[in-house]
C-alpha cells in the first residue's frame, strides 16, 4: 500500500500540472498569435502617409490621420473629466471616509459602475448629454460618457495606491504638525503617484478602445475637416475600424489590418507604459 500511494499522488500531480500548463499555453499562445497576425498583415500598410494623411477614394486610400487625432482628442477629453474626479474620490475613500454604511454604499456604487455594459453607457450618454443637455453628437458628449465609464477603474486603482502608502508616513507627518490635507498633498499623494498614474493609464486605455459608448454620442464616419470645437463630432480609431471592416465594399484588407494595428499599438503602448511605471515604482519603493 505504501509503495502504491506515492506513485498515485505523483501521477495525479504530473497530470494536473500538465493540464494546467496546457491550459495556460492555450490561453497565452492565441494572444501572441493574434497580435503577431495583425502585425504581419497590417505592417505593410503602415507608412508616414498612412499616419498623417486624410482618407480618400471612399476610405480605400490615403491615411487615417483624422481617426488617430480623434482618438487622441477623446482620450484627452476623458482624462480631463475623469482624472480629477476619480483621484479626488479615491482620496476621499482612502483618507477621509469612515467605515459607515454610506461608505459601503459608495463602494457598491463603484463596483456597479464598473459592471455596467458599455452600450448602456452609450444609451445614457445619448439620453443625457446628446439629447437632454443638447450637446449634440460631439466630442464633449462622448468624452463625458467615456469618463463616467472610466471613473470606477481610476477610483479603485488610485485608492489601492493610496492605501499602500504605510500608515506610519501619515502619523509622522501629523505628529510634526501638518494638517490632513498637507499630509496628503505632500507625502501620501507623491508616494502613491506611480500607482495612480498606472491606474489612470489603464483606464484611459480602455476608453480609447471602446466603440459602443461613442457610437451614438460622438463618432462620425467621414468628416471634411478635423474637429474644431468640443461640440463637433469626430472620427475615432475603433469606430473607423468597425466601419471599414463592415461597411465599405472592396476595402483592401491591408488597410483594415493596418488600422487594427494602429489601434492596438496605441492601446497596448499605453498598457506597456503603465506596466513599466508599475514595476519601476515597485522596485524603487522605500517600504
Amino acid at each position, binding site marked *: 500500500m505504501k509503495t502504491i500511494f506515492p506513485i498515485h499522488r505523483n501521477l495525479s500531480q504530473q497530470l494536473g500540472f500538465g493540464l494546467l500548463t496546457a491550459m495556460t499555453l492555450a490561453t497565452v499562445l492565441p494572444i501572441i498569435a493574434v497580435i503577431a497576425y495583425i502585425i504581419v498583415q497590417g505592417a505593410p500598410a503602415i507608412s508616414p502617409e498612412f499616419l498623417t494623411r486624410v482618407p480618400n477614394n*471612399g476610405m480605400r486610400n490615403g491615411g487615417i490621420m483624422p481617426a488617430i487625432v480623434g482618438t487622441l482628442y477623446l482620450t484627452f477629453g476623458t482624462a480631463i473629466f475623469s482624472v480629477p474626479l476619480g483621484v479626488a474620490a479615491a482620496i476621499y475613500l482612502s483618507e477621509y471616509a469612515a467605515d459607515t454604511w454610506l461608505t459601503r454604499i459608495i463602494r457598491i456604487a463603484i463596483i456597479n459602475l464598473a459592471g455596467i455594459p458599455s452600450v448602456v453607457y452609450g444609451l445614457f450618454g445619448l439620453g443625457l448629454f446628446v439629447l437632454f443637455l*443638447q450637446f449634440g453628437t460631439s466630442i464633449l458628449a462622448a468624452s463625458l460618457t467615456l469618463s463616467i465609464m472610466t471613473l470606477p477603474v481610476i477610483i479603485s486603482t488610485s485608492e489601492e495606491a493610496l492605501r499602500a502608502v504605510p500608515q506610519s508616513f501619515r502619523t509622522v507627518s501629523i505628529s510634526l504638525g501638518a494638517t490632513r490635507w498637507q499630509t496628503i498633498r505632500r507625502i501620501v499623494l507623491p508616494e502613491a503617484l506611480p500607482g495612480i498614474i498606472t491606474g489612470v493609464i489603464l483606464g484611459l486605455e480602455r476608453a480609447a478602445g471602446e466603440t459602443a459608448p461613442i457610437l451614438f454620442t460622438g463618432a462620425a464616419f467621414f468628416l471634411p475637416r478635423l474637429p474644431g470645437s468640443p461640440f463637433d463630432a469626430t472620427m475615432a480609431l475603433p469606430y473607423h475600424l468597425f466601419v471599414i471592416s463592415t461597411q465599405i465594399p472592396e476595402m483592401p484588407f491591408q488597410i483594415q489590418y493596418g488600422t487594427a494595428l494602429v489601434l492596438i499599438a496605441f492601446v497596448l503602448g499605453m498598457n506597456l507604459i503603465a506596466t513599466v511605471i508599475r514595476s519601476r515604482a515597485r522596485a524603487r519603493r522605500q517600504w
Partner: protein
Amino acid sequence: MKHILLPFLLLTLLFTSGCADSAQAQNNPQASTYIENKGSDTIVNLALAWAERYQEKYPEVRISVTGGGSGTGIAALINGTVSIANASRKIKSEEIETARAKGIEPVEHIVARDAIAVIVHPDNPVSQLTLQQISDIYSGKINNWSELGGENRPIVRLSRETNSGTHVYFLETVLRLGEKDNQTLFATDTLLLPSSEGIIHEIRHNPNAIGYDGLGYVPKDLKVIAVAKEPGENYVLPMMSTVNDKTYPIARDLYMYTAGEAKGALKDYLEWILSDEAQQIVSELGFVPILKYNP
C-alpha cells in the same frame, strides 16, 4: 448631501453656458456652409464620393457623411441634428407625422436609382428564381436548396438590419410582393447583419447562403440571381438597362430628405447632385443614374 448638489450644479452650468452658440449653429444648418449628411448605408459610399468631389470644387463648403441606416438618418433629420437624411426607402407616414409634430416638413429628392441584387455563392447551381420563390425562402417556407433544384444544403438567409432602408424595401417589395395587406415576415432565424459588406463577406465564404444587397455593393465574384416577377415571365438580371426599362422587378429610387425646401448652399449641393458630373459618379459606383431615365 447639499455638498454634492453645489459642485454638480456649477459643473452643469459651466457646460450648458458654453454650448448655446455652437448648438445654434448646428440647429441652423442651412444658414452656414456645413452640411451634415446621415442615413442609409446603401447610399453612404455614394454620398461620400459626392462629398469628396464637391469639396474639391468648392472648398468653402464642408460636408460630413455618416451611415447608420435609412431609419437613423430620418430620425436625425426629425431630431434636428442633420441637414440631409439619406434614405434607400420612402419616408414612412409615421415618420412624416412625427416630423410635422416637431414643425418639420420633410422634402423628398430622388438622387439615384438602385437595383437590389439577390446573391448567392458562385458555386451554387441555382441561377434563377421567381419573386414568390424568394419570398418563400425568406419567410421560412423553403428551407433547403434541393427544393429549388440545387444541392442538398440548408438555406442560410442573410438580411440587413431592421434600421436599413434596404431591409424595409425588401420586406415590402419581395416578401410581401408589393401587396399592402400582406403580413408576411422574415423567418426568425434570418441573420440580420449590420452592414452590406457583412452580407457580401458571408456569402463569399458560405455556399449555403443567400442574401440581397444594392447592386453597387455586389463584387464581380459573387453570383447574381435572375429574377422573374411572375412564373412564366422572363428571368431578368439586374443592370442599368433593366432598371431603367422596369423589367427588373426589384428596383428602387434612392432619396435625400431635407427639412423643408433647401436653401442656399444646401440647395446648390442638391442641384449639383442631379448634374451630369455627379450622376457619372453614380454609375461608376454601380448604381443607376437618374438622368438617363426621366419621364
